[in-house]
């Protein structure tokens, strides 16, 4: 079935994934109009899009999305690069692994959200706390997958490269890092997913701007439609991050038949 490449099956494959979501929205819209669904519980899709459009026109949406995205990316940059660098270090040097890995594995088992009270005590409720939670959360997927990736580089390739006079930094650049890249990118995708989850939680706790603030504020005024706009925004941003990560995979791992674009 999947081997067929006739135009018919191609369009079918493109359209098929969207049939169910579109159907659900249609049913949702209809039941809201008929009156089965109270607009307090679930407003009709049309009114959600209308509120979304108004927020967009007033520039409010733009502002909140920008603030949230900045927090998410700052947290990712800090936590992600720390995870990558430490993963590279523990994967490469036995000595560093001996010193660091046990400690990191212990910390890993503490859910970042369990640290929220402590983080509030340390940093208060301003930007630093939110960025810290995100950074802490995205650190571990990248750390673990980088470490694992470095360790699972085929030793036969390393032996070959060394016997061909490739050592030191060149061995790292030509053999070890590219060999670990697939695993590192898996870590990045996990991190991106966690990044939004942690940001949502930290923004709902306390914030004066951002998507989380927007939805919490809307809740106060019983604006279920705006709450839903916020939820949809998170879904959209999460999907966008995933698409970007897949794009990176498709480019960097294009040598691998499993990732090459069809």
């Amino acid at each position, binding site marked *: 079935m999947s081997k067929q490449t006739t135009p018919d099956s191609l369009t079918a494959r493109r359209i098929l994934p969207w049939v169910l979501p579109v159907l659900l929205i249609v049913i949702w819209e209809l039941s809201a109009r008929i009156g089965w669904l109270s607009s307090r519980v679930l407003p009709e899709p049309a009114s959600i899009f209308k509120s979304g459009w108004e927020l967009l026109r007033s520039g409010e949406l733009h502002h909140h999305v920008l603030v949230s995205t900045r927090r998410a990316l700052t947290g990712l940059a800090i936590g992600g690069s720390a995870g990558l660098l430490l993963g590279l270090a523990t994967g490469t040097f036995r000595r560093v692994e001996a010193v660091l890995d046990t400690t990191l594995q212990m910390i890993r088992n503490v859910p970042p959200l369990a640290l929220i009270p402590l983080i509030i005590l340390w940093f208060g409720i301003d930007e630093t706390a939110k960025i810290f939670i995100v950074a802490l959360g995205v650190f571990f997927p990248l750390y673990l997958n980088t470490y694992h990736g470095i360790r699972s580089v085929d030793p036969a390739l390393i032996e*070959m490269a060394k016997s061909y006079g*490739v050592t030191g930094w060149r061995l790292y650049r*030509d053999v070890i890092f*590219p060999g670990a890249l697939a695993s590192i990118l898996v870590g990045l995708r996990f991190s991106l997913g966690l990044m939004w989850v942690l940001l949502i939680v930290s923004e709902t706790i306390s914030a004066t701007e951002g998507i989380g603030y927007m939805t919490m504020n809307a809740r106060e005024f019983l604006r279920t439609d705006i709450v839903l706009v916020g939820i949809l925004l998170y879904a959209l941003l999460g999907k966008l991050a995933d698409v970007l990560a897949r794009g990176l995979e498709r480019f960097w*791992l294009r040598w691998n038949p499993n990732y090459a674009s069809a």
Partner: protein
Amino acid sequence: MQINPEENSAVASSASVGNSVSSFGIALSVRDVHKRYGEREVLKGISLDIRPGEFVAIVGRSGCGKSTLLRLVAGLESGQEGELLYDGSASGGRSNDRHDTRIMFQDSRLLPWKRVGDNVALGLPPHEYINAEFVLGQVGLRERRLEWPARLSGGQRQRVALARALVHKPRLLLLDEPLGALDALTRIEMHALIESLWRESGFTALLVTHDVGEAIALADRVVLIDEGRITLDERIDLPRPRNRGHAAFAALEEKVLRRVLQQPPNESEPDDHPGDVSLHRTVDQVRWAV
């Protein structure tokens, strides 16, 4: 290098006699080498002298120690007793420093994330990258230089691996069952290619194989190792290129095979081959079943 056609033909004609004496290849001396892994002694006193430019094949059953010997010569293993002399000096054992020795493995070990041309250029200084293209041409894959290794067939990958070894102009080429995983037809093509490049370049070649026919087709000398000892050292004086259908060829093959078969199989011995062990075993078992 080997571009000069007159030089090539001179080397080729001297090699074709069978007793090539090339000043380019390395003279390799193995003196009473022992190697053990824990309790098990894999090599029990191997002595072997290989002249510059000579093509020597080592045959034997799985686990007889032939791959271990090759890896010692390549400097990929150490901790042996005895001496390894390269042109009379004991500079071996430090794999990173032996720029004149290159090894070709059973699995091609191409870097999958580098294009074919970049794989061949691995470890070359930038100003010699152009040579990679030239050597790729020698193995007939010049037009595939921008391809990813995953898109090549097994035989093509081994040709790339051969090019990658030869681009360094090695004076000693070590071949660790490089054709073991290939089909019979591709193997015969590879024999011709390896032989012609050896005759052109004049390097010393040491081939480990369990295919007696392959050993006789390529080598000046066939050495049989059994349970860590050399039990046969047979000179092959057939004219090149060798014809497998020839009676003398068949007689030699028969003779060596019979010597191999005299020894009891040592199936319980762990395989000392570091590569694809399952594949290696399968090929081996099929061969002995036939």
